[in-house]
């Protein structure tokens, strides 16, 4: 029997889907805003000459890169509230999990970028009398960041993909809304396909931006060291 496709279900509920997309973007933005500075801190800790500090940072990074984000999310949403005695809603759990998880990846990008700035720059800055802080802020980080932009953008896109996990704890992101609508309208094929298509368009567009920025940087001689 030929299946009768019916996309009107999608059009009728498009506002809910877009609301879900907004939810996805909200979580992504919040996680990025927290994850980036945290990632830089961890990266600097890993580069520290104090063994204990760099070891602790190393363990942090390994742990959050090796365990599945869904496990981390469940821990945050189900386990943490019991431990600290405070209710954690799905948005909070999502942002907490994703900022910490992404910070582990961002830390590696930061570290790679900082280390890739050639020794001569460090020496010239030190020869002028700069302190470590001044050296990082005025000479190394500005150069490192430019090279790391494509890697960061890639990580940010990964982050956006990972936010779909929050649907499992009933946060109203795009996947959750699609799931919800599909159940109510008994049209999972159309609804999920439409949701997948929306994700595709957004993420594909973002990847193109990354490619363009990578090409621009390669031209200006500041390509990322992968």
């Amino acid at each position, binding site marked *: 029997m030929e299946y009768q496709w019916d996309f009107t279900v999608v059009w009728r509920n498009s506002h809910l889907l877009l609301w879900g997309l907004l939810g996805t973007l909200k979580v992504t933005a919040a996680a990025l805003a927290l994850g980036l500075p945290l990632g830089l801190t961890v990266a600097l800790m890993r580069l520290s000459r104090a063994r204990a500090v760099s070891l602790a940072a190393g363990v942090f990074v390994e742990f959050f890169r090796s365990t599945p984000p869904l496990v981390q999310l469940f821990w945050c949403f189900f386990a943490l509230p019991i431990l600290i005695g405070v209710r954690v809603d799905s948005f909070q759990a999502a942002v907490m999990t994703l900022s910490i998880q992404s910070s582990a990846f961002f830390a590696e990008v930061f570290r790679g970028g900082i280390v890739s700035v050639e020794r*001569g720059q460090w020496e010239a*800055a*030190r020869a002028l*009398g700069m*302190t470590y802080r001044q050296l990082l802020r005025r000479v190394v980080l*500005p*150069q490192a960041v430019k090279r790391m932009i494509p890697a960061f953008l890639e990580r940010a896109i990964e982050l956006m993909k990972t936010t779909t996990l929050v649907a499992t704890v009933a946060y109203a992101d795009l996947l959750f809304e699609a799931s919800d609508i599909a159940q109510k309208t008994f049209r999972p094929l159309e609804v999920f396909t439409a949701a997948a298509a929306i994700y595709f368009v957004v993420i594909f567009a973002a990847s193109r931006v990354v490619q363009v920025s990578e090409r621009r940087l390669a031209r200006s001689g500041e390509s990322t060291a992968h």
Partner: protein
Amino acid sequence: MEPILKIDGLRKSFGTLEVLKGIDLEVAQGETVVILGASGSGKSTLLRCINFLERPSAGRIALDGKAIGAEDGGGAVRYSEAQLSRVRTRVGMVFQQFNLFPHMTALKNVMEGQVTVLGRAKAEAEQTARRVLAKVGLADKTDEYPARLSGGQQQRVAIARALAMDPEIMLFDEVTSALDPELVGEVLRTMRALSDEGMTMLIVTHELGFAYHVADRVIFLHDGLIHEQGTPQEVLVRPRERRTREFLEGHGLFRLPEADR
């Protein structure tokens, strides 16, 4: 008069490899000293100890009469980063690979140390930067990024960057070795002008002609020790030590003009 730089028993080891084995050196103010030696003799290491990019394993360095670092009870010397930072503002360094900051224009490169480290006001720093860039002949290149400058121009900006800090001593670490031959001249001329003005300079170089005409004193380093030192006439034309002679012969391109032999 107190020598502006006094080095006593300087030793430097990297792990088990001892590169400097006991250097004693005094440099008077305004002196231009050229340091020669084969690779591995420790010339760069010596320079990098003077501005403490490397920490001495043993020995003391005194700037303008004051010893750097503090001796602790056990005979070792402790250095504080803060003091070393200050020392580095008094000792300028120019590198073989220029090491200009690529994300800043020539002008900003020369201003950077003044503003960030010396705390000068931007306007004052800019004035000084323009003055010094003009001095090295690059007044028209102030707004160019290093990538757009030739090697010789970049090196002159590097010299300007160090000069802008008003150092008491300038260190030059093989600053022409990475340059194409036709660009070497402009940098050497700049260095000669500096020397004529009375800047105290320690120069590691292979440019023997330059050493002969500009240096007040030539030092030949071999295997981590000063093997021979004296005036350019003494060391370059009539070296006493065999190894010095061997080294100079290895640099066979150096030929004194007939009249000076």
